[in-house]
């Protein structure tokens, strides 16, 4: 099997140029492997339906669901209609009929070569798609490489020389550096890198994308976005929920794999990158990877104690939002003496001219007091506090907070004079909220990402080198934690902001975690 030849992308039709609503997909077929699964029901079909409703998909767009379920195409349509009603609410009958007429199902097991021959025949019978095919592997990670192999054996890694063939791969992408590298190598045997779209739904969120706009479409922030003015950066992704019936998965994954290696690293790279030369996929991804490569290894080779740069935690029983919450070890499919971390805090140092000496503190955990994701840029205090002499008072440093979810927006904390004859200061917050400034609902991440993949725009997808670099950074820590049991687990109560060690972790640096 040879890797697919590079796809020749035709020049855009001149009539398309200058149309304001131009982000619409070209004719194509989308083949979903794992079409009977939860992701297809909850995310993929609602996203495709929403794109159809918003007129982002062409009239010749086709969906082929593939799964090991004894369904007919009609069964599949009925199942998807039910899913839409459950997860998106009202379904427009006329629109659904139009969409459903272009939806088919192919039953079969993924290890059967005949399935892929049948699929090829189905695709050949759809000339209106222009030979363009998007494969979505909504399957367990263990099936990614075998599926890619089967596609190639059936000649589906480059279905048509006239069209493009792309493949979307769900996370987790590997479970450490070695497995991620092996998976990349297996995929690269049959697909060009430009054909592979590694999805991280976090990057499809509107606010994450807005960080790029905020930084590079405004002239006032970039000059102070560096070590001269910034004291440190905190990136928090907190969840109030526990592991929710995913005990088996979480026992294998843990917070470091599940959140830090992918979501937090992606956010960090966007916050820390240099200005790309162009707003296009490779230029942006080139800058992001430079940031990740600039991160100093957590410890020098051979050093074993990660406590100065990392803290792990596991929740015990407690209360979240007034409700009693069981401890992690009491959850279903979790070992009673589990060593798996549900909380991680890291201190990273980016070694380049912009960020040298500015620590990036990352934290993520489950069963924290609330669901919040944010980036907080804490600026340095003024060099001289002239207000201290006559009116002793504390002055809070300026903080710029980019809220990713919920209440998406941007806030700046600064000092203001309290009205009155005395010179009293107090911190105030200037707040920009998407919800009140732009009251329109934001698109779901999957809508954005599916459309991007159909358009061949990989900006919001992880490139192989990004995935490997993030694993290279985190794998030594993972291995250390997996070989050395945490003696103090569980070490934080559900509903708290994590273990005391995490607080101490910042106090040692003379700083403290923000309370989001």
């Amino acid at each position, binding site marked *: 099997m040879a890797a697919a030849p590079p796809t020749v992308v*035709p020049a855009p*039709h*001149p*009539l*398309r*140029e*200058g*149309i*304001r*609503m*131009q982000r*619409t997909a070209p*004719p194509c077929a989308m083949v979903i492997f794992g079409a009977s699964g939860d992701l297809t029901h909850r995310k993929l079909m609602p996203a495709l339906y929403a794109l*159809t*409703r*918003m*007129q982002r998909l*062409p*009239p*010749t767009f086709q969906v082929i669901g593939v799964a090991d379920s004894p369904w007919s195409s009609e069964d599949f349509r009925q199942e998807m209609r039910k899913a839409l009603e459950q997860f998106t609410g009202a379904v*427009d009958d*006329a*629109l659904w*009929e*139009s969409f459903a*007429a272009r939806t088919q199902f192919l039953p079969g097991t993924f290890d059967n070569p005949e399935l892929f021959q049948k699929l090829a025949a189905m695709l050949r019978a759809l*000339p*209106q798609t*222009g030979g363009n095919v998007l494969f979505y592997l909504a399957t367990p990670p263990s099936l990614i490489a075998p599926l890619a192999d089967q596609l190639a054996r059936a000649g589906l890694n480059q279905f048509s020389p006239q069209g493009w063939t792309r493949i979307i791969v769900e996370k987790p992408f590997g479970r450490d550096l070695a497995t991620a590298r092996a998976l990349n190598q297996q995929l690269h045997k049959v697909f060009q890198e430009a054909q592979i779209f590694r999805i991280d739904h976090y990057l499809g969120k509107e606010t994450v994308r807005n960080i790029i706009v905020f930084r590079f479409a405004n002239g006032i922030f970039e000059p102070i976005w560096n070590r001269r003015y910034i004291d440190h950066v905190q990136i928090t992704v907190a969840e109030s929920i526990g592991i929710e019936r995913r005990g088996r998965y979480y026992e294998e994954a843990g917070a470091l794999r599940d959140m830090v290696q992918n979501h937090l690293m992606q956010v960090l790279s966007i916050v820390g990158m240099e200005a790309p030369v162009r707003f296009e996929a490779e230029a942006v991804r080139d800058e992001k990877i430079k940031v990740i490569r600039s991160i100093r290894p957590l410890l020098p080779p051979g050093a074993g104690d990660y406590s100065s740069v990392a803290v792990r935690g596991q929740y015990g029983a407690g209360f979240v939002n007034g409700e009693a919450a069981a401890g992690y070890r009491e959850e279903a499919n979790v070992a009673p003496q589990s060593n798996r971390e549900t909380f991680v805090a890291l201190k990273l140092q980016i070694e380049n001219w912009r960020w040298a000496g500015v620590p990036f503190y990352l934290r993520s955990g489950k069963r924290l007091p609330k669901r919040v994701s944010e980036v907080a840029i804490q600026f340095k205090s003024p060099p001289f506090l002239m207000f201290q002499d006559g009116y002793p008072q504390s002055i809070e440093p300026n903080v710029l907070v980019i809220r990713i979810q919920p209440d998406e927006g941007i806030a700046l904390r600064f000092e203001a004079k309290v009205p009155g004859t005395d010179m009293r200061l107090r911190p105030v917050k200037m*707040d*920009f*909220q998407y*919800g*009140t*400034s*732009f*009251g*329109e609902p934001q698109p779901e991440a999957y809508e954005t990402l599916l459309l991007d993949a159909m358009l061949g725009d990989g900006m919001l997808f992880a490139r192989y080198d990004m995935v490997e670099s993030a694993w290279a950074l985190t794998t030594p820590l993972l291995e250390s934690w997996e070989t050395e049991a945490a003696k103090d687990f569980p070490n934080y109560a559900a509903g708290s902001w994590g273990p005391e060690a995490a607080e101490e972790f910042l106090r040692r640096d003379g700083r403290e975690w923000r309370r989001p």
Partner: protein
Amino acid sequence: MAKTLTAEATALDLCWNDGHMAALEAQWRALRETGEEAPAHALALNLICRVADAADAERMAQHLWKLGRRHPARVFLVYSGAEGEADRVRLAACADGSEMVELQLDPRRAASVVMPNLAGDLPVVLLWRGSDPGGDPEFPIWSALANRVLVDAQRLRLTAAQVATLAHELPVGATLGELTWTRLTPWRLLLCQGLEGELAVPEGIREVTITAGGLGAGGSLAATLFTGWLAEKLGWEAMVVSTEGLLCRRPAGEPVRIRFEPANHHECLLRRVVVRGATTAVTIEHHGAYVSMTVTHDGATVGQWIGSSPGEAVLRSDSDTLSEELSIGGGDDLFRRVLDRGLELMAQWEAPAA
């Protein structure tokens, strides 16, 4: 739903000196900042909407509240009261969108209220819904304040030539937007989505049939703009003009035909567009409440889209159409080029049709 706060500025006698202006501003600020009901929010633009009368103001207020979610604006709804009616100023703020000032005033006095109250450093858009701006002495007063002027030629019964004149005569620094052109955006988009197979390359297009209301009777602006768009983007030049349409020459020299068919409809809107190649055709058709698109190959249907939602997308509401124009920061150069090109081609066609 966001709560709207309103207040009658009855305490103001409308003598616009500094003191009274401060009172107006204070009242406005109070509306905007009244606790949780109207939290501070970001504004994106100023929108001066010169409406026809109080009823039109009411109608536009509904549209603009809705638009505030996407285009948070300081809105001035301006109109002259009927003979003998008292001057009036009403203020309103919406918790998740725009601020609105309704001014029933003599236009010169109204402009002197609007000017100092424009939100600083934000663009000013004038939406003109009065009479023909070409002959209205009030139009220059308002257009002088604006960076961008929006008109709806269909509503104002303006011909393509009048729109072109208006575009050329705006004050320096102001650009024109026209809502008939905006209404064509989804038609253009649908057409692009249907351009498959041989039609995916410009050389594959052999014939275009445009069916529109108002053809031949003062000219359909929609047909003029659509024709201008095709010619501008594809480099077509008219060779032969007949009552049926235009025989054009492509850049490489081959002919391509544009046919015009009048629709039985009084409005100058598109009803159907058919683009044909040797074997493939795409038809976009507006019928009743729906718009359908059909792609055929050798006479067989290979793609079809019928549904209320595409219909909604094409037959967009006034709010949606206006929303698209408010998204544009600067001028729309393509519109200007398309208008000039369309006028040049259609002027040739209209003469024999008449």
